[in-house]
C-alpha cells in the first residue's frame, strides 16, 4: 500500500467548505483522511506543506496539446509537463488536432500518452462533428467510452443551428457537456482584434462582441427545449455574460469559463505592445467595460470556471505580420500566478473561490473525478505558495511554446508541487 501525507499546509477545499491548517492523507492514490495531526504511520512518504496552500488538484478544462499532428508546437508530454509546473493535475485537451479527435483511436492515443508520461491527467474532449466540419455528428458515444469527457468543435463554432440542437439532444445519452466556441463567423469575418476604439485607431479588422453574443443567445434558445448541458468556452464579452446570467436565472443548464487574459488584458494592448502577436487571440482581448463585467461575474458566481485556453504556437508562426499570425497564447504556466496576484491579492475573489473556479467547478462541469479532497477523491493535490514572488520567464517554460504576453511580469504566488494519484510529480524530470 502506498501512502503519502501532505502535512501542515493550509487546506482550501471549497467542495467541503474547508479552509484550515491540517494534513491530507492519500492511500493507494485516493484521499482517505483530511484532519489535523494525522500520524503518518510506517512507510508513508511525507510532503511538508508548511506555509503552503493545499488544494484539490487544479484542472484546466480548456487546453490545446497539439498532439497528434502538430507536435512541433506541443505534445501531450510537454503540455502535461507544463501543466504540472503550473500547478495543474489535469487538463482537458480540445479536439482540433490533426487528425481531429472525432474518434476512439485519437482519444485513446491522448490518454495513453498522458498515462505513459504521468505528469498530469488528460481528459480529452471529443469533436461534435466529423472532422469538425459542422455537418455530421461524430461518434460521441464511442469517444466517451474511450475516455472523452465532453464534446466541442472548439477552434470553430458549432455554426449550424440544427447541429447545435441535435448535439444538445444527443449528448444527453452520455451526459456530457457541449462546449461552444461562440463565434458568428460572418460577423467576425476577417477580424483580428476586438471591434472597438482600438481597432478603429489601428485600422485592423474588428471582431465584434456581437459575433459571440448572437451565438450564445441562439444556443440558449435551443437549450431551453433540447435539454443537455451547455458550456460557453472562453466567454469574453459583457453581453455574453449577461445572457448566461439570464439563462441561469431561468434554470437552464448553462455554464461558462473565462480566461486569465480576458480578465487581465484589454484591446489597447495591441497598440501598447506595438502590434505584438502575443496579444492576438480568439476571442480577442475586449474592452475595459467587458473586462470589468467578467471580473464582476467571477465575484457574483456567474462565471463558473477559469481556463487558460493554452494555445501553443511555434515562434516562427507568431513572428509574422499581426494580421496573419495564428490566434492564441500559452497559459498553463502562468494561470495560477496571474490569478493569485491579480484576482486574489487585490481581493476581487478569495482563495476558496479561486479553487472553485480552477478545480471544483471544472470537475463538476466535465463530471470527472477530482475537484475535491473529500475522502474517496483521487489523490490529486496542488501545493502553492500564495504570495511568493515569481518573475514569469517564457524561456524557462516546460511547454514547447513561448507565446505569452506575460513574459517578464512580476507576480506574487506560485505553484510549488503537484501530486497526481498520490504521487508527487516532478516536472523537471
Amino acid at each position: 500500500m502506498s501512502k503519502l501525507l501532505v502535512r501542515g499546509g493550509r487546506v482550501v477545499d471549497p467542495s467541503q467548505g474547508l479552509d484550515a491548517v491540517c494534513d491530507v492523507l492519500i492511500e493507494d492514490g485516493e484521499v482517505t483522511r483530511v484532519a489535523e495531526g494525522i500520524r503518518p504511520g510506517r512507510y508513508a512518504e511525507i510532503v511538508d506543506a508548511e506555509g503552503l496552500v493545499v488544494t484539490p488538484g487544479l484542472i484546466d478544462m480548456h487546453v490545446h496539446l497539439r498532439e497528434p499532428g502538430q507536435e512541433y508546437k506541443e505534445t501531450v508530454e510537454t503540455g502535461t509537463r507544463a501543466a504540472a509546473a503550473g500547478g495543474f493535475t489535469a487538463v482537458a485537451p480540445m479536439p482540433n488536432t490533426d487528425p481531429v479527435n472525432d474518434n476512439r483511436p485519437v482519444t485513446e492515443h491522448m490518454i495513453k500518452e498522458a498515462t505513459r508520461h504521468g505528469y498530469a491527467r488528460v481528459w480529452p474532449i471529443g469533436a461534435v462533428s466529423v472532422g469538425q466540419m459542422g455537418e455530421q455528428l461524430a461518434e460521441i458515444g464511442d469517444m466517451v467510452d474511450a475516455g472523452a469527457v465532453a464534446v466541442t468543435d472548439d477552434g470553430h463554432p458549432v455554426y449550424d443551428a440544427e447541429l447545435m440542437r441535435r448535439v444538445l439532444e444527443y449528448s444527453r445519452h452520455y451526459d456530457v457537456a457541449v462546449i461552444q466556441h461562440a463565434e458568428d463567423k460572418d460577423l467576425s469575418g476577417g477580424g483580428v482584434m476586438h471591434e472597438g476604439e482600438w481597432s478603429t485607431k489601428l485600422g485592423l479588422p474588428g471582431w465584434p462582441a456581437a459575433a459571440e453574443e448572437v451565438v450564445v443567445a441562439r444556443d440558449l434558445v435551443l437549450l431551453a427545449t433540447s435539454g443537455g448541458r451547455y458550456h460557453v468556452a472562453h466567454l469574453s464579452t459583457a453581453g455574453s455574460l449577461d445572457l448566461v446570467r439570464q439563462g441561469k436565472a431561468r434554470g437552464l443548464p448553462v455554464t461558462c469559463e473565462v480566461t486569465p487574459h480576458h480578465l487581465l488584458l484589454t484591446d489597447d494592448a495591441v497598440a501598447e505592445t506595438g502590434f505584438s502577436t502575443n496579444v492576438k487571440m480568439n476571442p480577442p482581448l475586449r474592452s475595459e467595460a467587458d473586462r470589468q463585467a467578467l471580473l464582476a461575474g467571477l465575484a457574483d458566481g456567474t462565471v463558473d470556471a477559469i481556463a487558460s485556453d493554452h494555445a501553443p504556437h511555434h515562434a516562427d508562426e507568431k513572428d509574422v505580420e499581426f494580421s496573419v499570425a495564428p490566434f492564441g497564447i500559452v497559459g498553463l504556466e502562468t494561470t495560477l500566478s496571474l490569478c493569485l496576484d491579480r484576482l486574489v491579492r487585490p481581493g476581487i475573489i478569495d482563495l476558496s473561490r479561486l479553487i472553485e473556479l480552477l478545480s471544483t467547478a471544472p470537475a463538476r462541469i466535465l463530471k470527472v473525478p477530482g475537484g475535491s479532497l473529500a475522502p474517496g477523491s483521487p489523490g490529486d493535490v496542488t501545493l502553492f505558495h500564495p504570495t511568493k514572488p515569481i518573475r514569469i520567464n517564457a524561456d524557462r517554460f516546460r511547454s514547447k511554446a513561448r507565446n505569452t504576453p506575460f513574459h517578464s511580469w512580476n507576480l506574487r504566488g506560485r505553484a510549488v508541487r503537484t501530486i497526481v494519484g498520490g504521487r508527487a510529480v516532478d516536472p523537471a524530470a
Partner: protein
Amino acid sequence: MTESTWTRKDLLGIAQLEPSEIELILDSAQTFLEVARRPIKKVPTLRGKTVVNLFFEPSTRTRSSFEIAEKRLSADSLNFSSSSSALVKGETLIDTALNLQAMAPDLVVIRHGHPGVPQMLAERIEAGVINAGDGAHEHPTQALLDALTIRQHKGRLAGLTVAIIGDIEHSRVVRSNIHLLTKMGATVRVAGPRTMMPAFVERLGVEVAYTLEEAIAGADVVMMLRIQLERQGKKLFPSVREYFQLFGLTRERLKAARRGAIVMHPGPMNRGVEIASDVADGSSSVILEQVANGVAVRMAVLYLLSGMHREAA
C-alpha cells in the same frame, strides 16, 4: 527653421509626431517644391544613398511619387514589389527584411496591406523606414501632402474645418489626416455610409455626420475618399448609383461649403461615384496640386530621415 530637430529613424505614422515635427516636414517640403520648376530637376542631396521601395500592394501613384522624389534627390533607388519578390515563394516578412538589411540600404519605403508591418520592419532593420501605407492604419506622407496643399491655399491649418467623406472604416488616408489635422488645431468632420463608419469613430477626436450636406456645411476643405468599387453590391453598399446619390459630391452640394472652400481627393478618383467630373475639374479642385506636393513632401521626408540635414548643419 531648425532642421536639427528631426531625430527619428523612421516615419511610421502621424500618430507619434509632434506638431513641430509636422511643421518641419511641411516647411522642408515647401523648399523642395522649387526643384520641380528647374530645367534640370535634380539636386545632389542624397547622392550615394540607397533607397528601397518595398511594395507589397499594387500602387502606381504613391510608388511613382516616391521614385521621382528619390531620383530628384539623386538617391539610388530600387523597386522591390511583391509580384517580383520572394514573397510569393513563401519567405517570411522578417526574412525579407533581414535580406534587405544585408544589402545595407539607407532607407526603406514600405507599402503593405497589413497594419503594423512598417513598425515590425523598423524594429528589425537599421535603415530608416517610411510607411507608404499599411492597411487601414496610416499613410503619413499622404496626410502631409494634404496638409501642405491646405496650407498653401488657406495659409494655416489651425481653426479650419475639414470634411472627409467616404469609406472611413477602410481608409488609412483618413486616419493619418485625422491625426495630423487635429494635432495642428483643425476641426475634422467625417461622413459616410453608416456601414463604412468604424466603431467609436468619435474617439478619434472628430465630428461625425451621416449626410453629405451636414458634413460640408461651412467646411473650408472638402476631402473626398476613393470608394473601392469591389465593395459595391455586397453588404456595405448596394450600388455605385445609390452611393453617388447619398455621398457623391456635386457642384450643387458644394455650395453649402464655406466660400473659397477647396476640394481634395487622394486619388485615384472614381468620376461619377464619389465626385462629379465638373467638381473634380472645377475651380475649387486642388487635386493635381496634391499630386505635385506629394513629390515635394516625399523629398522632404527622405531628406530628413537620411540624416543629411544633420551633416549639412
